[in-house]
């Protein structure tokens, strides 16, 4: 939290109450979490690389609402729309405020899914960056374990797991939410989709995000699965 924040000028008791109230609101809706507790790393900005999540942008608010109300999403996007950050933040929200969640963040390679927190890169790397920049996180969060590929909250039975493309890990488990980033360039996305059907049919979340590329993701997006020689 920046030193010149209006919160810092408040009396200690008022501040604690305000933070607790905001955290309570954040637990109810991700928009509050994004607005008050999420920070991103912008490598292009030399002066202020760490900045509040751009919640004010209309497309961020619209996509948050769509994600919350529609558990199965396939999103074809233009490049550099801050969507990977957004979906990492939304799955982090699930991880922090829901119980018994097994959340998988999938990318083409495991290295891309794991990423690097310092550089704000990769899926778990971005999630860790946001997790570690939550204001007053020591007061707000319980014990969270971090390994190379997982973030775990044992008290709430929540796991956030970086996985590579393909069906192998998904098939053996029924996850609560799966976010597949750049699924248009994952040759095994069709197998991953098939393996995730128990998740899809069982009421879990499945979010596929990709930039236009002829692929299985395109068929899912265009609703042409099973048509002709597709």
């Amino acid at each position: 939290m920046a030193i010149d924040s209006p919160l810092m000028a408040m009396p200690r008791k008022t501040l604690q109450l305000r933070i607790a109230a905001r955290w309570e609101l954040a637990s109810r809706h991700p928009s509050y979490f994004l607005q008050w507790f999420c920070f991103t790393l912008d490598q292009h900005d030399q002066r202020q690389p760490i900045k509040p999540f751009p919640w004010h942008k209309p497309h961020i608010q619209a996509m948050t609402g769509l994600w919350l109300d529609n558990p199965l999403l396939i999103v074809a996007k233009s490049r550099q729309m801050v969507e990977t950050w957004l979906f990492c933040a939304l799955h982090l929200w699930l991880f922090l405020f829901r119980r018994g969640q097994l959340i998988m963040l999938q990318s083409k390679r495991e290295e891309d899914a794991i990423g690097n927190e310092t550089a704000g890169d990769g899926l778990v790397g971005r999630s860790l960056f946001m997790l570690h920049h939550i204001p007053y996180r020591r007061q707000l969060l319980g014990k969270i374990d971090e390994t190379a590929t997982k973030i775990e909250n044992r008290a709430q039975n929540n796991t956030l797991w970086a996985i590579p493309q393909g069906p192998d890990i998904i098939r053996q488990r029924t996850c609560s939410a799966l976010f597949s980033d750049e699924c248009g360039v994952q040759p095994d996305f069709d197998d991953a989709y098939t393996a995730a059907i128990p998740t899809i049919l069982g009421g879990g979340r499945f979010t596929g995000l990709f930039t236009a590329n002829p692929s299985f993701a395109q068929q899912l997006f265009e609703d042409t699965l099973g048509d002709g020689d597709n």
Partner: protein
Amino acid sequence: MVITEPTVVIPGIDARPCKTGFVAIKLHYSSDPETYTPEHVAALKASMPSWRFRKEYEIDFTAQAGQPVFESEALNAQSRNLRNPIARMDLDESGKLVKRERGRLAIYQDVRESWRYAVGMDVSEGVAQSDSTIEVFEAFKREQAAELADNRISPPELGRFAAAVGEYYNRALICCVRPMHGITVLRTLVDDCHYTNLWHDRMDEHLAAMPTERLGWAKGEGRSPRLMDPYIEAVDAQEVILRSMQCRDQHGQYIYDEKGLATLSKNTELNTALRARHGDMVVGCALAYRACCDVPKARSGHSAPRQRSTDQIGMPANDPLLRKLNKRAQRTSR
């Protein structure tokens, strides 16, 4: 907002429900006018080919169709690598490779005792249609060492030829296509020639509840992104050294079709099934590249294939300078 019918959520975001239960969302850059100002969009358009802008920003799935698969700069850079064959070889009566003036196998690199090689094979019927190809690459530098392209060689004869080539190149790892006539070649290699250093895939067999190994490359050939994408990346990054001019030229004939799959430009008028069966040198090279990546490190006598340091320099593992550098690195790490 629960999406039950096609909806414009805000300008630039369209959502519609699908039969699968998914909601398909098209997120166009115009939904973020703060970032994508007209000046920024104009700068982006000017910084890349128009088809790439249409693909990556306008969400145009067909923008790539007709574009070359391999970057022309990368192929032009291969010109300095091209050589005439240093020899030609063919099979003698006993089935061994011998030098022949008009041999079918063009040799670009003499075999070296401690080096490891990988072979890629694409198989045709051998009735003067598409080529059967054998491409030999040195597994360390990914340098083309030998090449055969023949449209009259029968699959069994190709199997015997491949076994001889494999033996000649230090029992090279052979990666051969499995579909169609590929299985004939693989059976000849195993049953008749007793050649065992073959690329194989491990698949989960649900009926037997155990993994089974299958010889050869199963999933498609020239149109398989799983095979072609890593090879395209390697050629574009100039991590592959091509010696044959005909082979280099064939790379230039590959374009993307409307489904974003690599295809030979002269065959775009053919239907998908016919195009998929067409064999050529590029498929052989892609298979050889895949085999290069899978040559066991311990047996190769070289460091890991995709590591940058020594691979890029092209330095053998036992080079004195490399040993010196390694010692220095160890001292530093302590």
